[in-house]
């Protein structure tokens, strides 16, 4: 029997690019198939039934049809629009940062429901408190975990000795933390303070609600941010482009006004 021509899926829109006269080529992350690229026919026309539905950072329930080269979005219904997040410039930029990472780490035709759930709960946490950076740190850490790239935090990756309560070294290249006795030649090697190691272990054990209650001083927050974004960028194999605009907004920290 021939496979059905249509199917239903739930997906978060990651990005789109214009295609042809009025179509959109949409990249989305689905719960059951991982990353999918599909065409929204006529979606740029103001009277299209898809207009407004395919904006990035929208959780959709969709009917799709198998196409010759790419699938076609035939119908869509918004499940969660994260509208509060989209009323804030910092919130939008943080959401797009997540979308860029999921686009980079998510594989086509390979379901990763943990990553799907992680993205939704992180978007909800950003919506609750757009100014806090903890949802991003939680996301970066668990992104590594659900992608099979979890750094070692309890034993030295070289000598396998249990880590003492002290400062250590860290490198994504060797897979995590090293004791101070082990010093392999590695361009990515950096110091890891005991406080930062404790926060990483806490991120490992806690859920996002507990992680967002953490209050870090500026130097600890900067250390974690640098460590996690460098690690994520290392595994992605390229620079995270939305990071530079996010940095710029953080440095400005002006009051937000929505028009």
């Amino acid at each position, binding site marked *: 029997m021939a496979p059905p021509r249509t199917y239903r899926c739930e997906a978060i829109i990651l*990005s789109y690019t214009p*295609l*042809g*006269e009025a179509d959109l080529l949409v990249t989305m992350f689905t719960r059951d198939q991982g990353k999918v690229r599909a065409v929204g026919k006529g979606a740029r026309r*103001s*009277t299209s*039934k898809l*207009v*407004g*539905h395919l*904006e*990035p*950072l929208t959780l959709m329930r969709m009917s799709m049809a198998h196409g010759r080269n790419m699938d076609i979005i035939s119908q869509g219904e*918004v499940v969660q*629009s994260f*509208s509060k997040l*989209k009323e*804030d*410039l910092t919130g*939008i*930029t943080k959401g*797009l*940062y997540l*979308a*860029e990472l999921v*686009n980079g780490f998510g594989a086509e035709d390979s379901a990763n429901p943990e990553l799907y759930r992680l993205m939704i709960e992180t978007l909800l946490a950003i919506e609750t408190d757009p100014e806090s950076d903890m949802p991003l740190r939680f996301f970066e850490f668990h992104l590594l975990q659900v992608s099979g790239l979890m750094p070692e935090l309890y034993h030295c990756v070289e000598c396998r000795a249990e880590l003492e309560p002290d400062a250590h070294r860290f490198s994504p290249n060797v897979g995590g933390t090293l004791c101070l006795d082990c010093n392999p030649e590695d361009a990515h090697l950096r110091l890891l303070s005991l406080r930062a190691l404790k926060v990483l272990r806490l991120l490992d054990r806690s859920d996002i609600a507990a992680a967002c209650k953490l209050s870090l001083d500026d130097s600890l927050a900067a250390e974690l941010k640098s460590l996690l974004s460098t690690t994520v960028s290392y595994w992605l194999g390229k620079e995270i*482009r*939305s990071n*530079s*605009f*996010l940095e*710029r907004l953080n440095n*400005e920290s*002006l009051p*937000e*006004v*929505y*028009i």
Partner: protein
Amino acid sequence: MSRLVQELNRLPGIGPKSAQRLAYYIIRLPDEEAYALADAVTSVKQNIVFCEECQNLTDASPCQVCSDPRRDRTIICVVEDPLDVLAMERTRTFRGLYHVLHGVISPINGVGPDQLKLRELFSRLNQPDIAEMVVATNPTLEGEATAMYIRRHQGRDDLKVTHLARGLPVGGSLEYTDETTLTRAFQGRQEI
């Protein structure tokens, strides 16, 4: 022949097959029509410049709109692209001036404020006779982010900053309208 196909293939929306079809069409054109096409491409690259005021593409700076004394110089409409100016002009409703950004802030594509004509906009806003700025970026996520950035950085307390109304398109349908648009349409309801 293959060079022409290669060059046509670079154009947006033109795949390899379409590029071949266009190339064959150009070869079959009478000489004068083919040279006219080549001349149009050459002259557009040689003669088109950014208007020194609104940054729109023009063959003479300042452009026709900016040099028209009948335009209202107290109001500036900020748009993403030159095509948006044409769309606005077709309405014959807006009689003020424009400012073309040539894109929107797109963090995911590495496009930041420095790649847009924002410095020129903020410099124009220093003119005290400008009383209102209409931010007419598209109601997309990146268009909204750009509008918020402009609002944040425009630097004048006495400037009225507005954006175009959000709501239902003429010929649209409530049933198929997304919740954000419908909410905005409801918030902006008008007495009839």
